[in-house]
């Protein structure tokens, strides 16, 4: 194809406006943050931060709570993704049938995604209230004991997980519905003639055909869940009970904006970034291997 100008030049002009914004607002602050992570910038050295090398990075790994919080962040991500994908995919499969009223159902199931996240999180916090919260009222009305949701680490963690499952499954449902619509019917017909049951059809047709849409969703979902500040922060009211319900990002947020440990928090966030890079690389490798 002959074009007046080279492809690179054209691409440059198309991409430039977006690149300028992303470089100024994301890349530059990111690099600045890496610099801060190497300094002793905090409350006591607010005006005269000095370069201190990898001091903060060394401190991360000697922090007594670090391994616990790290493990919990992984658990948080894995549990949420499992539920998002099973519920989202399940809902998509149900709604992909010829079901009376399926448009209404679909609209209703999108609601959790449509409501602004901070509103959902604050609302669920209210619903987990020990005395007046709807969740405990529901539990007692079916004869179970009420739970003090913010009195123990595991209960607070569960409350945040329930909230986030609620928030996240519609996104996967919408993605999967889009993918399901593009699967040719003939494939199912052929499989049926070959005598494949519904389970077999799901694993040998539906799931492989959905892979191109589900894999990017899985990568994004992992990153978003791992980095989800809003839900833990707002549902557990800044880490109730007593800073015990933190995952990595909320821990960092508290260190930076409540304890003013800028250098330390910056080092921690570089660490979070590196962990995610490794995870995404892993996905990439798996998907590439399967392609052959």
């Amino acid at each position: 194809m002959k074009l007046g100008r080279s492809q690179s030049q054209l691409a440059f002009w198309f991409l430039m406006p977006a690149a300028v914004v992303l470089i100024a607002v994301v890349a530059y602050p990111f690099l600045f943050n890496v610099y801060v992570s190497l300094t002793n910038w905090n409350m006591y050295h607010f005006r005269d931060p000095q370069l201190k090398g990898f001091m903060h990075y060394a401190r991360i790994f000697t922090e007594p709570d670090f391994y616990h919080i790290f493990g919990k962040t992984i658990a948080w991500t894995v549990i949420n993704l499992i539920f998002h994908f099973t519920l989202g995919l399940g809902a998509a499969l149900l709604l992909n049938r010829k079901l009376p009223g399926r448009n209404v159902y679909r609209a209703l199931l999108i609601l959790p995604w449509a409501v602004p996240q901070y509103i959902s999180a604050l609302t669920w916090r209210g619903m987990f209230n020990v005395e007046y919260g709807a969740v405990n009222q529901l539990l007692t009305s079916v004869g179970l004991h009420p739970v003090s949701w913010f009195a123990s680490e595991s209960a607070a963690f569960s409350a945040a997980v329930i909230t986030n499952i609620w928030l996240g499954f519609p996104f996967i449902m919408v993605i999967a519905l889009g993918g399901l619509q593009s699967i040719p019917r003939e494939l199912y017909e052929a499989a049926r003639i070959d005598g494949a049951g519904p389970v077999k059809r799901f694993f040998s047709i539906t799931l492989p055909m959905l892979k191109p849409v589900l894999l990017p969703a899985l990568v994004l979902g992992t990153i978003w869940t791992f980095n989800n500040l809003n839900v833990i922060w707002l549902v557990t009211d800044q880490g109730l009970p007593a800073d015990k319900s933190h995952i990595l990002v909320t821990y960092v947020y508290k260190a930076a904006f409540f304890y003013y440990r800028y250098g330390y928090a910056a080092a921690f966030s570089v660490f979070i970034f590196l962990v995610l890079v490794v995870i995404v690389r892993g996905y990439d490798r798996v998907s590439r291997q399967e392609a052959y």
Partner: protein
Amino acid sequence: MARPGRIKSIWGMVWVHALVWLLVLFALFPVIQVFGISLRPGDQLYSTHLEIIPQGATLDAYRIMFTEKPFFLWLRNSAIVSLGTALIGVALASLGGFALSRYRFKARGAALQGILMTQMFPATMLLLPLYLMMRKFHLVDTLGGVMIAYVATALPFCIWTMKGYYDTIPVDLNEAALIDGCSPLQAFARVTLPLSAPALVITALFSFMTGWSEFMVARVMLTSRELMTLPLGLESLFTTYQTEWANYAAGSLLVSVPVVVLFLVLNRFLISGLTLGSVKG
């Protein structure tokens, strides 16, 4: 012969409906709760009953939101920020996504990786450098300042969505326009862009939602009361949660209804426009 998608037995039908209803209940439960609470009269804020419409239901909380709280001011600020974010976001993402989908240039792989990487860094830690930078440019405590931050937040996902959608449109159409004498920009604007309506809608919706529901950045950047956006306004009721539960509930419904309506109207586009492209391009 039964076709796929048709449910064979009555029992199968019952099962499917039961499962769907279970999910719908889960999705609706909090919404119904908030609706009920927004109707509660002052003396029943701490009711321990589960009924949806409380006894002595009243619209008082809504009246208070409209007349005693600066709700319309918050609404105006949020509308400016969200519409601005959507406009700029769509413009930048539709152009940038096109370059990534159609042209093969050296830095393409790096650009795609870079866009994904922006998502991996904990956004909250960009806040401090961003704040210092905005202060230098006198953008702290301006709606324009938060708008820039929101565009940058929404942009990676939007570029990705646009790129993924362009990938599904045959290249030939664009090339035919070029051969007919259109400039690359004309070919893009007249041929490819109109075909990308579903993705444009998603991009606009996503950018709008970013502005409409963002809380943490706004909290740091906006300090004047006249510039408070809806999330800040609602949270100001929430700090005195104990006394303003009903107002908060009414406020959150007022904030959510427009975006929920948007979502429902655009439902059709959501499913066709969100192809998400492929990670590696």
